């Protein structure tokens, strides 16, 4: 079975995000970019499936600017077998919308004959949480979202999902799209030998046009603004004062 893992190049989770002065979005010029952390978990899970003998090949795919090549090299250094870069934008500020990404992925899945897509549940840059679901609809495949545990049992995938209030275990028919949550695994570091090998692994470069997909935006960002700054706290000497204060403010 081939496993396809879409990986997105996003602003590093450690970077303090700054809104562009015109409010059109977040400033991405000269900031550190990394692989979307949920995608890293998906890559890790795919490699584990391969190590367990369940998967034969792990293919990482990224859709976006040319610089996403770095993100793919990271996936290769973690242990993916090969990578496909679909160049769909020149400007680092242009985000490819979930529907366009899903359409391209659907083509790649067909072309590669993949039996499983492991994707992050969402990208941390715009939190759309849509690509996996759209891809499932386009392919007519089963979907299991927010996976915190995954087992492949013959023709089925058994997935534990993190839902409000607890865990839900579902069994879906393969082929399937599984989107992964934070607690599925802890991604490995790229080992030094694998970093050195990554360069020699194949990385195919395509364009959105190669798949005949129009990536022009359909959504319009009306405004981006900084979150409200937190109000300064107050240190109280003891529990009694705390209770009194809370009462005074009508909180209890």
């Amino acid at each position: 079975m081939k496993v396809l893992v879409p990986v997105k190049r996003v602003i590093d989770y450690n970077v303090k995000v700054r809104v562009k002065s015109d409010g059109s979005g977040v400033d991405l010029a000269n900031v550190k970019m990394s692989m979307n952390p949920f995608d890293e978990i998906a890559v890790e899970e795919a490699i584990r499936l391969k190590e367990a003998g369940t998967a034969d090949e792990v293919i990482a795919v990224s859709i976006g600017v040319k610089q996403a090549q770095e993100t793919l090299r990271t996936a290769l250094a973690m242990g993916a077998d090969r990578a496909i870069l679909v160049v769909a934008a020149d400007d680092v500020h242009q985000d490819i919308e979930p529907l366009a990404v899903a359409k391209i992925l659907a083509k790649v899945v067909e072309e590669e004959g993949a039996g499983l897509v492991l994707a992050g549940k969402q990208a941390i840059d715009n939190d759309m949480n849509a690509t996996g679901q759209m891809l499932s609809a386009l392919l007519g495949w089963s979907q299991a979202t927010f996976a915190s545990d995954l087992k492949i049992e013959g023709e089925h995938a058994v997935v534990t999902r993190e839902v409000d209030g607890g865990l839900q275990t579902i069994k879906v028919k393969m082929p399937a799209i599984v989107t992964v949550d934070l607690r599925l695994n802890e991604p490995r570091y790229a080992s030094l030998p694998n970093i050195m090998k990554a360069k020699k692994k194949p990385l195919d470069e395509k364009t959105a046009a190669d798949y005949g997909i129009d990536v022009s935006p359909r959504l319009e960002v009306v405004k981006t603004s900084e979150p409200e700054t937190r109000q300064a706290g107050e240190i109280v000497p003891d529990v009694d004062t705390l209770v009194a204060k809370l009462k005074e403010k009508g909180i209890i």
Partner: protein
Amino acid sequence: MQFGLTDEQQMIVSTVRSFVEKEIYPYEAEVERTGEVPEELGQEIKRKTIELGFYACNFPEEVGGAGLSHLDFTLVERELGRGSMALTHFFGRPQNILMACKDEQRDRYLLPAVRGERMDALAMTEPDAGSDVRGMKCQAVRDGGDWVINGSKHFISGAEHADFFIVFVATGVDETPKGPKKRITSFLVDRGTPGFEVREGYRSVSHRGYKNCILYFDNCRLPDAQVLGAVDGGFDVMNEWLYATRLTVAAFSVGRARRCFDYALAYSAERKQFGQAIGKFQGVSFQVADMITEIDAADWLTLSAAWRLDQDLPSNREIASAKLYATEMLARVTDTTLQIYGGMGLMDDFPIERFWRDARVERIWDGTSEIQRHIISRDLLRPLGA
């Protein structure tokens, strides 16, 4: 001229950076408080480093290392410099000088050191011979076919974890027109060799938990097989292999300064006095500007010295400049950061006071700043006859 990192170098940097952030940072405060690295923790860091293929990555592939270039290895050292030295010690980088091992020395010392089975320490300094290495008193004399060593060494880093030691000892004196000149030989000495003892050393203000020990030799008998390099060739092995250690001190200083600077920058933007962020006062903002300028300068100086080594260009002076400038830069950056933090900078709630203390030794070990200036100036003036 090309200043960017390759994809591989970028990945090396980010892997080591994440390793330090996840496997080292969380344990630093505890090491600092107790002055000790718990045995299991050290072994755990070592195990993970071996698993990642980074252990002894400074060694060539034919002996089991990763064969990194000087530049790549300098990037590794730079990222490790962010973390506590007591802990990153277990992210093992054995002494390059072990490449001088011959024949069965390779199986007993070099290869086990690269595999992480045996740890090494290097001993040159003595109470009466610091910068003046050749002034050492610790000596070995011939007795039958063996050598008998007497004397002591102090300030020996990593000795408490070491399974064996590379020890430089005087093995005779040559009369020269400039006066008597000692001949030096380096020996491989196993812990537990009769007549050899490792004792607890002094408590240092820098790098708590990264201890130094005192070594005593009392009629310690060693066969010829323990000589590393040639008899009386101690300075040759030293010159052939030890230059690179100074570069690691420069790289450490740059990495540490960057971590410290992140604190300074964030605090300048967050801390408010007189109704505004202190970074809005020119007195503070100009300090921020000077710090990053110096850090970048030291970074390029260090990387370019490493690059020169890779190109087989003469690099002795450039390495000395990098070591000198980077360590002095680190002293200024840690001191300025502490000043920006005000009183809180001195409290151990933040790592700033520790960065400041740690920085102090960098200007002393592996050749003091004065000795680096000596190397640099001799390199320039000697050819002019001055």
